[in-house]
C-alpha cells in the first residue's frame, strides 16, 4: 500500500540538480587550461633562455604573471612545468599521459599497427566512457564549451528575430563519418581525424595562436562548424557529424551511470526535450548511447522527475507522466495519493 506513495515522494539526490553548474565550471576550467598551457610553455622558453632582461614590456608582463601563477606549484619552472602539457586530444597531466580514444583508432588505422605504450594512454578515458557514457562531449570537450555558448547565443538572436537553423538529420550519420574517416586514414596513411575533430582542432589552434605565429587553417574549419550549428542545425556538428562523438556513443552504449525519468513525477511539460543539446527525447525515455550526461534536463525539470540511476539500459517508454497516479485527480483509485500532495494542488490550480 505504501510502496507507490514512497515512489511518488522519492526525490532525486539533491546534488544532481546542481551538476549542470559544476559541468559549466569544468568546461570553463578545461578551456582556460588550454589557454594557460601555451602561455606557460612560452614562460618556460623564456626561463630556459634566461632572457628576462631582454624581454619586451608585454613579454615581461607575461613572464611575471605566469611566474605568479606557477610559483606556488613549482620549484624549477624550466623542468617542473613539463608535467602539464598538451590538449584534450593528447596530453600529459602530472606525468600521466592521456589520449583521446579517437587518436588511437586513427593511428592504428593509419599505420596498421598497435603501438601499445600509446594505446594504453587511452585506457583510462575508455574505461571512464564505458562507465559514464559520452561524458567527454558534455563535460570536458573544449569545443562543446564554444558550441553551447553558440547555441545560447542563437536563443538570444531568436529573441531579436534572427532565426537560427533547426534542421534535423539522421543521427546515425556520424557513424558513417567515423567509418569513412577510418577508411581514409588507412588509405592515406595519416591520422585524418586530427584535422576534422573539433576538440583536437581547437586545442591545436589555441596553441598556434598563442605560442606560435597565429591561427592555422583549422580555425576556418572550426568557424565553419560554428556557422553550421547556428545557421543550419542546432548543435549539428556534435549531433550528426562528429567522429569522436560517434566513437564515444559506441563505447558508452551500455554505460552503467545514466539519466532516468521518474514517470510518477513527470508532468510532460517537455522542457527536458527543449533543453537537450543533443536533440534527444528524455520525456519519452529515449536517451540511447547519445546522451552525454550533461544533466541539463535534470536542472530544468520543474517536478524533479529526472535523476541518475545505475542501469545498463534505458527503461522502455514509460508512457506519458501526466496520466500517472500523481496527476489523476478525478479517478478514485485506492493507490492514488491524497489531496495533501502538493502536485495535486498544482494540478487543481490549472
Amino acid at each position: 500500500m505504501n510502496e507507490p506513495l514512497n515512489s511518488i515522494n522519492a526525490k532525486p539526490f539533491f546534488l544532481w540538480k546542481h551538476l549542470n553548474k559544476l559541468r559549466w565550471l569544468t568546461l570553463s576550467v578545461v578551456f582556460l587550461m588550454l589557454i594557460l598551457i601555451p602561455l606557460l610553455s612560452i614562460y618556460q622558453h623564456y626561463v630556459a633562455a634566461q632572457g628576462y632582461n631582454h624581454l619586451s614590456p608585454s613579454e615581461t608582463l607575461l613572464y611575471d604573471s605566469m611566474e605568479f601563477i606557477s610559483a606556488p606549484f613549482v620549484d624549477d619552472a624550466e623542468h617542473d612545468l613539463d608535467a602539464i602539457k598538451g590538449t584534450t586530444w593528447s596530453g600529459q597531466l602530472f606525468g600521466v599521459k592521456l589520449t583521446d580514444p579517437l587518436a588511437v583508432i586513427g593511428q592504428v588505422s593509419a599505420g596498421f599497427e598497435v603501438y601499445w605504450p600509446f594505446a594504453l594512454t587511452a585506457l583510462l578515458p575508455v574505461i571512464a566512457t564505458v562507465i559514464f557514457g559520452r561524458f567527454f562531449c558534455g563535460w570536458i570537450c573544449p569545443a562543446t564549451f564554444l558550441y553551447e555558448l553558440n547555441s545560447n547565443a542563437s536563443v538570444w538572436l531568436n529573441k531579436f528575430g534572427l532565426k537560427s537553423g533547426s534542421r534535423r538529420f539522421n543521427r546515425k550519420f556520424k557513424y558513417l563519418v567515423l567509418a569513412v574517416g577510418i577508411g581514409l586514414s588507412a588509405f592515406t596513411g595519416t591520422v585524418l581525424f586530427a584535422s576534422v575533430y573539433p576538440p583536437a582542432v581547437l586545442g591545436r589552434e589555441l596553441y598556434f595562436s598563442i605560442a606560435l605565429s597565429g591561427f592555422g587553417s583549422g580555425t576556418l574549419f572550426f568557424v565553419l562548424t560554428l556557422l553550421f550549428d547556428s545557421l543550419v542545425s542546432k548543435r549539428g556538428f556534435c549531433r550528426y557529424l562528429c567522429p569522436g562523438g560517434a566513437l564515444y556513443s559506441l563505447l558508452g552504449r551500455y554505460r552503467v551511470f545514466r539519466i532516468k525519468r521518474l514517470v510518477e513525477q513527470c508532468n510532460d511539460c517537455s522542457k527536458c526535450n527543449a533543453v537537450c543539446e543533443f536533440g534527444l527525447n528524455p520525456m519519452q525515455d529515449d536517451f540511447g548511447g547519445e546522451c552525454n550526461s550533461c544533466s541539463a534536463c535534470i536542472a530544468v525539470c520543474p517536478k524533479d522527475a529526472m535523476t541518475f540511476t545505475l542501469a545498463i539500459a534505458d527503461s522502455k517508454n514509460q508512457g506519458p507522466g501526466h496520466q500517472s497516479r500523481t496527476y489523476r485527480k478525478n479517478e478514485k483509485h485506492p493507490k492514488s495519493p491524497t489531496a495533501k500532495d502538493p502536485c495535486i494542488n498544482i494540478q487543481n490550480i490549472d
Partner: protein
Amino acid sequence: MTRRRFLKQLSVLASAGVFFKTSFAKAAYKVKQFTQRYLRPPGALKEDDFISRCIRCNQCAEICPNNCIKFFGSENGIASQGTPYISPREKACILCMKCGDVCPTGAIKPVKRELKPIVQEVNMGIARVDRQLCLSWQGKSCGVCYRACPLADTALKVGFMEQPEVLDACVGCGLCENSCIQIPQAIKIIPRHTIAALGK
C-alpha cells in the same frame, strides 16, 4: 539508348578513377620531399612511419625549450599537414631530447641524452660543407660551425685553418648551419628523407 548511357557513365567513372590515380589528387596529397628542406625532430621515425604515427598533438613544440619546432600547414602536401618540423637555418635543434620523452605515440622515439644513444638513434640528416662558400676552405680561418657543433670531434672535425669536415656520426641537428656566418650558408643539413629518396 540505355546501353549508350551505361557506357557513357562507365567511361566517366573510369576516367575519374584514372584521374585520381595518376595526377592531381595524388600530387596534391603526395609529400613533396624534394622541394621542401626540413628536418624532423630528433629521434623521429622514417618519414612515412612518422606521418602515420604522428597524431598532431603539438606537445613536442610545447616542451621544446629552444622553441625550434614548427608545424606544417598544407605547403608540404596534405599528408604532412600539422606535423612538426625544424628549419635549421632559422632555429636549430639543441638535442635536449625532451620531445622524444613527451611524444605519446612514439613517432619521436625517446632517446637518452648521452653521446652514444644520440649518435646511434638520432638521424635527422647529415651536414654537408660547400667548400666553394666556406670561409675556412677559401683561406680565411673561421671555425664557427665547429664551435657550434654539440658533438664536436665526433660529428665534425676541423683540420688545417679550421677547415670543417663532416664525419659519419653527424646526426643533423643543424646548429652548424644555424651558426654559419656565410650568406648563403656554407654548411647545410641534407635531411634524412631526402637522402633516402635520392638513394632509391
